[in-house]
């Protein structure tokens, strides 16, 4: 049994370890270790295409996560304790957003946006000299839609474990609803909100498939990596991959710690 577990862990970590190891290779071969060097990290960080893709990814991930967190938290607050048709409609929307494959969301968003743009742009261009196109905006919109649903699930889950007596007590003591929210509810759900933000950021940062369709002329880091793999593996890609994995991990460790704190609070 123990040996079996060990084998599965080896299976899980061997590929990651190999990428990380080869990224330190001094040679040009991507699949062989030839001495130790950090040169590929230097190359990756000095590659303007990589840096531009990274910057796009960071901006999209940050903005979509901020929007998704705010809008998702608002929706979660409204949905907690809600009954009736509206509640069922929103539950269904959250489910659809999480369940429909990313690839279908990607193509659907692509053709819907392009069609709407084709309709609107002739007027808009005459009126403002400016036209709508795919890019940062559509990336933020499409990523945020999915991650907002995750935020709703996380924050609503936390809200449902809150002690309603605290909110009643606050009201009895004369706090306004806004004051109660700021001083009682918000501090308790904050870890879940922050965890939601970090998950949203990581999802957007790592997402390839939705971005592949809605990025237009923009290139995100996963899109860059994918097209580079198509051209052949290089140690530079190994270095980028290792850095991306390390960054995602860091974000998720923080998210996990926050969630655990939120759960510990719930138990208290």
């Amino acid at each position: 049994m123990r040996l079996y577990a060990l084998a599965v862990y080896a299976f899980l970590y061997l590929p990651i370890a190999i990428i990380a190891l080869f990224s330190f290779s001094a040679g040009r071969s991507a699949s062989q270790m030839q001495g130790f060097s950090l040169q590929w990290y230097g190359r990756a960080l000095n590659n303007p295409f990589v840096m531009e893709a990274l910057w796009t990814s960071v901006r999209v991930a940050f903005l979509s996560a901020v929007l998704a967190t705010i809008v998702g938290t608002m929706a979660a607050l409204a949905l907690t304790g809600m009954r009736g048709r509206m509640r069922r409609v929103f539950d269904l929307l959250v489910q659809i957003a999480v369940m429909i494959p990313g690839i279908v969301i990607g193509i659907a968003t692509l053709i819907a946006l392009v069609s709407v743009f084709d309709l609107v742009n002739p007027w808009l261009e005459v009126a403002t000299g400016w036209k709508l196109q795919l890019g940062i905006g559509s990336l933020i919109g499409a990523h945020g839609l999915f991650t907002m649903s995750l935020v709703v699930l996380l924050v609503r889950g936390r809200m449902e474990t809150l002690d309603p007596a605290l909110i009643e007590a606050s009201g009895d003591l004369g706090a306004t609803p806004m004051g109660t929210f700021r001083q009682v509810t918000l501090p308790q759900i904050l870890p879940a909100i922050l965890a939601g933000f970090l998950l949203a950021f990581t999802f957007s940062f790592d997402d390839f498939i939705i971005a592949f369709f809605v990025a237009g002329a923009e290139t995100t880091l996963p899109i860059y990596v994918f097209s580079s793999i198509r051209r052949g593996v290089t140690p530079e890609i190994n270095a980028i991959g290792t850095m991306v994995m390390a960054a995602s991990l860091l974000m998720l460790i923080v998210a996990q710690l926050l969630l655990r704190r939120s759960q510990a609070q719930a138990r208290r």
Partner: protein
Amino acid sequence: MTQTRARALLLTPAGLWYAALLLLPLAVVLIFSFGERSAIGGYAPGFTLEQYANLPARFAAFRNTLTLAPVGTLASLLIAYPLAYFLAVKVSPKWKTMLLVLVIVPFWTSILIRSYAWIFLLGGKGIPALLDVIGLADVRLLNTPFAVLVGIVYGYLPLMVFPIYVALEKLDKRLLEAAADLGTPPWRAFLQITLPLSMPGVLTGSMLVFILLMGEFLIPAILGGGKVFFVGNALVDLFLQSRNWAFGSAVAVALVVIMLITVGIYTRLVKRFGASRDDVGLM
């Protein structure tokens, strides 16, 4: 009354977002699937069932998806179950959290990069080179259904381990003690108590993995070498290369419908097993 209004206000931004970027796009796909391909690519309005009649043209993609998704789900299940069992039953509480986190960590790093790692392992200088040493020369692994299967299991294993672990962890150990006291051999106790009681976890995990596999694109694209096409790959091809939006939409609708049917059946099963869990509780 004011509370209702506050709720409506709080829900408005999310509602608009869902309407603009979920419902509208899905409606557009549905409408386009009844249309035609315009001469310059893209879409021309119309109402025809031609696109659906053309679906058999992508038979290979549907076949690959509908075989490798269940096979991949089953393979993940068979590998994940013993590990989940080990973590839930055998490991001391001290190590449990750490070992669990170690299962999830790879899942939370880019699937793109993790899949691409298998190019090294399955390629010429990886496992085939090792097999060559023991006399199995010229084994081709990369760009085969096997490579895609390995990538699938590797990519989604954590999603399977976790729900099964949760189900096993909740299992009332007293049931097993009672069974042992009544002289039930361990293997029978496993088959009659542990396995049925872990079914909700098995079904949840299988559903999660299956849903993701139905829409898979990356793993076949990276490890299948253009030979093991999934519906996801057909969609990318139809929308980005041949720009046949009407037919692509029909393929997407078909994929979602197949998924919904499967998920529906699954939900039924989960409900059935949920009920049987209560029966055991009453015993």
